[in-house]
């Protein structure tokens, strides 16, 4: 199948086409978009290239066999959940990982809605600045360099002296705290 031909079609549309005519070719196009991501996620959990490859194929098979049973709204989130689930099950079977599967799994769809929610609400610059001041120094520095001055991790790292992993976690935690602060402020209004 010609990959380029379907480039302009969004996931959602492909998913609808699949639900309409149950033609697995649509699924093929859809899944191919995520091969790299699936492999990456499997690598992250399984830490072994061969196992990761096997798992990607298991996930493909699972999606092909089971997607028609559910009415999936956000394909990407669903796929992420299925993949994570599969990897965690594998780890559990090997005894490397004790249960703790459910909690983080269901949240992804809700996350997407919440994200939209936050984005749709208007933020005044002033409020944003106030929230920024609530962050600790490292987070403030990294968030500013990254989001406002648009530097890459590498640049932020060499400017601040933190290593890449630290930069990444400061940015991610900073962003999360920022969001929490903003929600708090909205609540107070």
């Amino acid at each position, binding site marked *: *199948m010609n*990959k*380029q031909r379907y*480039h*302009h*079609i*969004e*996931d959602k*549309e492909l998913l609808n086409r699949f639900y309409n005519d*149950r033609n*697995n*070719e649509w*699924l*093929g196009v859809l*899944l*191919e*978009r*995520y*091969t*790299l*991501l*699936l*492999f*990456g*996620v*499997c*690598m*992250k*959990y399984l*830490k072994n*290239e061969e196992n*990761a*490859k096997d798992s*990607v*194929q298991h996930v*493909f*098979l699972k999606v*092909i*066999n089971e997607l028609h049973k559910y009415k999936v709204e956000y394909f*990407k*989130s669903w*796929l*992420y959940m299925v993949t*994570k689930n599969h990897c965690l099950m594998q780890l559990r079977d090997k005894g490397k990982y004790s249960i703790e599967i459910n909690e983080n799994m269901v949240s*992804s769809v809700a*996350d997407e809605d919440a*994200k939209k929610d936050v984005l749709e609400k208007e933020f005044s610059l002033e409020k944003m600045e106030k929230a920024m001041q609530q962050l600790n120094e490292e987070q403030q520095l990294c968030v500013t360099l*990254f*989001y406002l001055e*648009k*530097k*890459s*991790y*590498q*640049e932020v790292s060499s400017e601040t002296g933190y290593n890449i992993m630290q930069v990444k976690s400061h*940015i*991610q935690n900073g*962003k999360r705290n920022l969001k929490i602060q903003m929600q708090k402020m909205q609540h107070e209004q």
Partner: protein
Amino acid sequence: MSNDLKNILSNLNPGIEQEKLLQYLNNHLDASEAHEVEKQLNEDPFLNDAMEGLQELKQKSTLPVTLHQLNKNLKKQINSSKKKRAEKISFQQPWIYYTIIILLVLCVIAYVVITRF
């Protein structure tokens, strides 16, 4: 048509995205492009997990080969699932039912013949 236009404008272009990610992994992007990728990493836990996993690979240069292999297998799986489906459909063809009916009729006739004579 207008829908297609909208799709072009939406920044959803997964094919290019995979390519971009590969370039990012190999440090082939300049700082501002890297920043764009990293911004998406922060937005998207799926992408972020994937990137962390891919960064653990010892040999990133073989990644395109792995991808190609996985996609080839995906195609095989899709094709074989289609074949299975085709077989399932063929079971629903009318001659199956005709055969069953004829067999049943034969049974009844046989029964009648045996009990009568």
